[in-house]
């Protein structure tokens, strides 16, 4: 093989690897940025979002008709308890892995009296007496609650209800109680 040919092959192999790495890591990088923006260094707490306006820049294509609460979760300290207070219109709890997959969703038709989920890392032991255990494929991710609130007065009410939501490490809850 000529020396030029070797360089062409090297460029080709590097190009193919770079192509697939770019595609593979794009959602992971986007999720990492979202987790950092939402948590600002903290994890396992609910952050109730301001009403979506043209100034909202945290997540692409936000819906102005929803009141959002987001919890950047981290299972490195063990399971995380997620509780969602009921809302009198559509609401849902959705869980996203660190590659952006929506691996679990629960809505008000399935949980009329609110959501109560214990999130564990896939393959790890399930806590006893947990009502609903969900396995996360990744250590970090995002829990997101959507409450339908198209009008300003709906949004204000949703903000009140969202105060009752819980997102916390069970380890931390045990130590504080």
């Amino acid at each position, binding site marked *: 093989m000529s020396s030029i040919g070797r360089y062409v092959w090297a460029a080709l192999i590097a*190009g193919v690897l770079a192509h697939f790495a770019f595609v593979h890591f794009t959602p992971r990088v986007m999720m990492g940025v979202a987790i950092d923006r939402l948590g600002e260094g903290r994890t396992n707490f609910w952050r109730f979002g301001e009403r979506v306006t043209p100034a909202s820049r945290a997540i692409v294509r936000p819906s102005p008709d929803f009141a959002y609460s987001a919890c950047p979760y981290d299972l490195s300290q063990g399971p995380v308890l997620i509780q969602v207070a009921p809302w009198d219109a559509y609401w849902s709890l959705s869980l996203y892995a660190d590659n952006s997959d929506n691996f679990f969703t629960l809505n008000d038709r399935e949980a009329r009296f609110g959501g109560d989920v214990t999130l564990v890392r896939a393959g790890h032991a399930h806590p006893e007496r947990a009502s609903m255990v969900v396995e996360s494929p990744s250590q970090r991710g995002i829990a997101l609650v959507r409450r339908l609130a198209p009008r300003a007065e709906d949004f204000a009410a949703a903000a009140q209800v969202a105060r009752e939501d819980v997102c916390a490490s069970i380890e931390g809850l045990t130590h504080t109680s």
Partner: protein
Amino acid sequence: MGAMRGVNIGGVAAWAAAIVVGLVLGAASAWGALEFGRAGFADRIGQWSYSRAAGARSADPYTRAIIARDGLLALNAREARYFSLERDENGAPLRESCIYELMGADLAARWWSVTLYASDNFLAQNQDHAESVDSTRLRGAWRARVAPVRGEAANWLSSRSAGRGFVLMLRVYNADDGWRPSEAALPTLTTVSCAGDDS
């Protein structure tokens, strides 16, 4: 000795250059695939594009990357379906200098909405408070004006400051069992007029 070192350095530089060129071209081709290849990873239903794999664990890497860029934290299709409309009936990008009419009927779902996003995937930078219409406000056969000014329209999606290449996104939540998106069921966009000659 000095000449040999010069040859080795030249060889290393050539290898490094080849690898750098490969990395740049590989990354550029991936960016191009995500930027210009969206249509290839979505279904076309009338004027709307629809990715049934949005949010799904079974999504292929390209679909996952495109959705992460254009709609991070999308719900999977069991909960919600997302449709995007980026071009008018003539295939031209949607633009602020035009007036459009969006017409539709109730969708067989619990809730649905149409929201206008600028080409950066965020709400257009205006204070018109007319970025969305939804099924709590529209009943039966409906029509909405998509334009930078409301005029006499009862329903309005403001494209003020949206520039060129804005997007309409249709969200359909908890669709009825058996509902299948079709051209007849989804809203239709028609161009009413365009100002200037930027079309």
